[in-house]
Each structure stands twice: as C-alpha cells, then as structure tokens.
C-alpha cells in the first residue's frame, strides 16, 4: 500500500529539486543566451546575442561553426570578380529544390587564378525568402564555388528586394569561409588540392604519355622513314 497522494508528492519533490538545481546547475537551464547554450566544448568563435539595447553583436556571422544558413559564393584571394570560382554552369540552379537561384551566364570568358578562361555569372541571385538552406547546391557544385554561410542577421525592411541577395552580396572570400567553418573549409581545401594534384599528375602523366607516344610515334615514323628511306634502296 503506497502513501495516499504519494505520486503527487514524488512529483513535487522532482520539481523542487529542479527549482533549486536551476540556481546551481548550469546544465539544467534550457534557455539562456544562445552562445552559452552550446556549451564549452562547442563554439570556437561563437557570437553572443546582444542583451542590452544598443549593444552590437560581436560577430553576426557565426553562431556555431557547424551551422548553416544560406549559400554564398566563394572567391579566392584577391579581387572578388577576378577570382570567383563560379563558372555559371547552372547545375545548382537546376538542382535547387525550391528554385531560388537565378543565374545568367556572362557573354565573355575571363581568366581566373591561372586557370584557363571560363564563363562567369553575370547575374547570380538567391532569393533567401525562398531558400530552405538544404545545401543541395553545395553538393552538386563541381567547382566548390558555392558553400553555406552562417550569417543569420538578415532582417530588412524590404520584404522582396531586401531578401533577394545579388551576386555581389553573395561573394565571400575563402578566408571568410575558413573563419566560419574551419573544419569544413580545411577539408574542402585539402580535397581540392588533392584533386588538383591528381589532375596535374594525370595531366603530367597524360603529357608524359603523349610525349612518350609522340616519341614512339616519332620513332616509328623515323623507323618508317628509315624503312621508307631504305625502301628505295
């Protein structure tokens, strides 16, 4: 036979423990300032939401280096348009599930970062009021040109134009990317470097093979020539 009302008393003991515990045990509090909540192990450069009027966000771009918000366009070091990675291939536009990307290809080609001349986006708009932060565009991009930003402070008084981000709003440097998503950026750079190396190795191999082939051809030709030369004899 249990105590009459024992279950209720037990429950009240639990709530009392939580009442007292919430003053001592920081782990119990669900709600607190955002950056705090993520715990000590998490944020490497977490911004803190302003508590008081007039106080600015220390860093509006990062809440947590894993979070994603809206896409941005990457460019390597230097003038943005001189080193933009996007070649306006429009794969992301095609794959975007909510269809929020609008790209217009440039008329001319432009040489960037020592690579061969490519098209660039004359227009690259993302309607962030429609974008659902799914990261599909990042995955399908073969040039690592589009990655996710984590800037969340995007409020604007203009509900249409203000939420349509143009190419120049979207352009961010690789350094910025390293700042907000260090691990991901490092992994991406490494992979790109590997790919580049592999490509170059392949190129080199191909070149060598071509050279070899050319040599062989030359040799063969020479032999053939010799033969030809010999022929008349």
């Amino acid at each position: 036979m249990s105590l009459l009302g024992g279950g209720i008393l037990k429950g009240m003991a639990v709530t009392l423990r939580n009442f007292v515990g919430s003053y001592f045990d920081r782990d119990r509090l669900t709600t607190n300032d955002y950056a705090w909540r993520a715990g000590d192990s998490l944020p490497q450069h977490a911004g803190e939401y302003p508590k008081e009027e007039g106080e600015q966000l220390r860093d509006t771009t990062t809440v947590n280096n894993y979070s994603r918000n809206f896409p941005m366009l990457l460019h390597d070091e230097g003038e943005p348009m001189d080193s933009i990675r996007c070649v306006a291939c429009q794969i992301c536009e095609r794959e975007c599930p909510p269809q929020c990307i609008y790209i217009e290809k440039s008329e001319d080609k432009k040489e960037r970062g020592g690579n061969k001349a490519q098209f660039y986006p004359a227009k690259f708009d993302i309607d962030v009021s429609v974008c659902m932060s799914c990261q599909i565009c990042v995955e399908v991009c073969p040039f690592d040109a589009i990655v996710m930003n984590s800037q969340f402070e995007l409020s604007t008084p203009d509900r249409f134009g203000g939420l349509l981000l143009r190419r120049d709003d979207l352009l961010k440097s690789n350094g910025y990317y390293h700042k907000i998503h260090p691990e991901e950026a490092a992994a991406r750079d490494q992979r790109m470097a590997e790919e580049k190396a592999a490509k170059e190795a392949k190129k080199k191999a191909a070149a060598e093979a071509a050279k070899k082939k050319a040599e062989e051809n030359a040799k063969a030709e020479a032999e053939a020539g010799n033969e030809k030369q010999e022929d008349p004899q």
Partner: protein
Amino acid sequence: MSLVLDILIATVPLLVIFPTLFAFTTWLERKALARIQNRVGPDKVGVPLTRYGGRFSLFGLGQPMADGIKMLFKENIVPRDADRLFHLLAPILALIPAMLVLCFLPLEFPWTDSLKPVQAFLLDGAVIFFFAITGLNTLAVFMAGWASRNKYSLLGGMRAIAQMVSYEIPLVLSAVVVVMMVGDLNAKEIADFQTGGKWIVGNWFLFTPWGLAAFVIFFIASLAETNRSPFDLPEAESELVAGYFTEYSGFKFALFFLGEYIAMFAISGLAVTLFLGGGAGPGLDAAPWLSVVWFIAKIFVLIGVMIWLRGTLPRLRVDQLMGFAWKFLLPLSILNILVAGFAWHATQQDSKTITVVTWVISLAVLYMTAKGLNQLNRAKVRPRNYRYAE
C-alpha cells in the same frame, strides 16, 4: 469626519497593499515557475521600467509594471454578438467580492490615533460572511462565460459553476471544525484562540489531526475555488483555449487577473486565520506591527505551495473533479467534523494519555477513511506491467 477617517485608515491599506502584492505575486509566480521549469524567467525589465545597462534590472522586478502598462493600453475587444453590458460587468463583479472579503481578515494595522491595532471590519459572523461573499465570484465567472457568446467561454462558465458550487461545501465543512473548536465565528477570536501555545505553533489547528485533515481539505477546496491548478478547468488552456475569459482582452482581462489573485490572497488569508494562527509569530511582544508581516508571510507560504503545485500537476477531468468533491472530500470532511466532536469531548479532561490516544485514533481513522475512499473511487487505476518482444 472621524468616521470617514477611520474607514479610510482601515481600508486604504488593504486597497494599497494587496494590489501591490498582486503585482509582486505575478512576478514571483513567473519567476518560480520558470525556475521549476529550468528557465530563467523575466530578468530584463528593471526599475523603473528601463533597461539601463541591465544593472538595475533587479531580477526583472519591473516586469509586473510593464505588464500592467501593456494591459492598460491594449485594445478592448468585445465580440460583435456579445452582451456588452454583462461583458463589462463580469470582471468588475469578479473583483469586488474578492476585495470585499479582505476586510474580514484579522489583519491588524497598528496605525490609528490611539495606536490601537484595528481590523478593517470586525464582524461577529465573519467566517459565514466570507463564504457568502466569495460565492458571488461564481456569478461573475458565469456572467463572463455567458456574455462572451463563445462556446469555449460558455463551457468554461458551466464548468466554473459546477466546480465552485461543489467545492464550497467541503470548504465550509472543513472550516466548521475550527469554528466548533473555538466556539466563535469571529475571525479575530479564531486567530486569538490559536496564539500563545508551545513554541508559538502549539495551539495552531494545523497541528491537530482533525485540523490537519481540515486544512488539507480546505486547501484543496480553496485551490478549486480560486481556479488554480490542478483545478483550473474553467480556464483549461489545452481544452477550452482560455475558458471563460477567452474573449477578454486589455484592462478587462487585467481585472479578471487581479480578481483571481486577490481571491487567492483572501482565501489563503482565511486559511491562515483558521489553521495557521493568524498573525501569530515570534517577536510580537516587542513589535505588535509584526503581526501583519507574519500574516502576509504565511499567505505567501500558501501561495508558494499553490505555485509549486501549478508547476507540477496536470489538470483533472471534469467528472473526476466533481467526483473528487462529492465522493472524497465531502464524506471525509463530514467524518472530520465527527472526529473533531469526539476528540473535543475526549480531550476535555486534562490527561496527556487520553489526548495522545485520541490523536492517534483520529489520525488513523481519518487516514484509513481517506485511503478507503480513494480505493473505492479509483479502484482500477494503478501502474501496469509491460512485456518485451525480443
């Protein structure tokens, strides 16, 4: 002139202190509930209503003021088909009886010309009057429910009537025990009867078996009377949106809110008078004014428990609520009256053994009856076993 002055001296403190305490209580409730739920609660609005650097925020004590100002400036919306007059009258009618009964509480303010402590309204039938006037609250709630012309409001009003009428009976019957023991209906007499025991608390009715039972019944019934959780069915948020004040906004809503909290103070004040020795407490000989402080402190203990319960318990269902009043509290409180009567006769002789035996027997009788009633009402309700499939 002197009469008017006397009236003002007696009543103005009530009209000032309790609404102020109401504001404080809303803050306290929000804060305590927040902490129970592992939140922080209001901590931004400071005194006076600004947020200067957060250094004067004083744990958000400015929040009730801010809430009040917001309430005042909110639009007053009356549904098109509502009964405008009664829609307006209902919140006023909810507030008046609650404020009125505060007069009967033995709060002895020490400031008069003769420096004699005075209670606002020293009535011989105070306890009866108290119940008579708090009964009016039912009318206000149903008026609100009916006048709003909203189905949720109507259901809430209907629930309120059933609930308040039912719980008034155990409420009164448990108060009867104290009245029997004291032999007087005067609130001040009841309070005075309980002073001067061992360790101050010796004469309190709370520390007798029948008093304890009566207090528990009284407290539960008072929760139901003031629509507090777990008996907040008339305003059941998850079922009836907001019950009888679904259609209220702005200042009218604030009046309801105020009335509800004042009623809480009043009924806790009565509980303090009946069971917790009124203003009794240490240090009264040196400073008689402390009695008011003790009285209010005890009220706040009860309100703290109410908040605590609100943070813990889910709500009862309407049939269970009525069953609880009629099948559990009512028989128990009637039995309690009998037990108290026997005990009073048994303890007339000044024998310690008889007193102890009476106490043990009455405690056992009351507990076993409660247990039996519980068993009878909720026979099938118990935890179950579950199986596992591999």
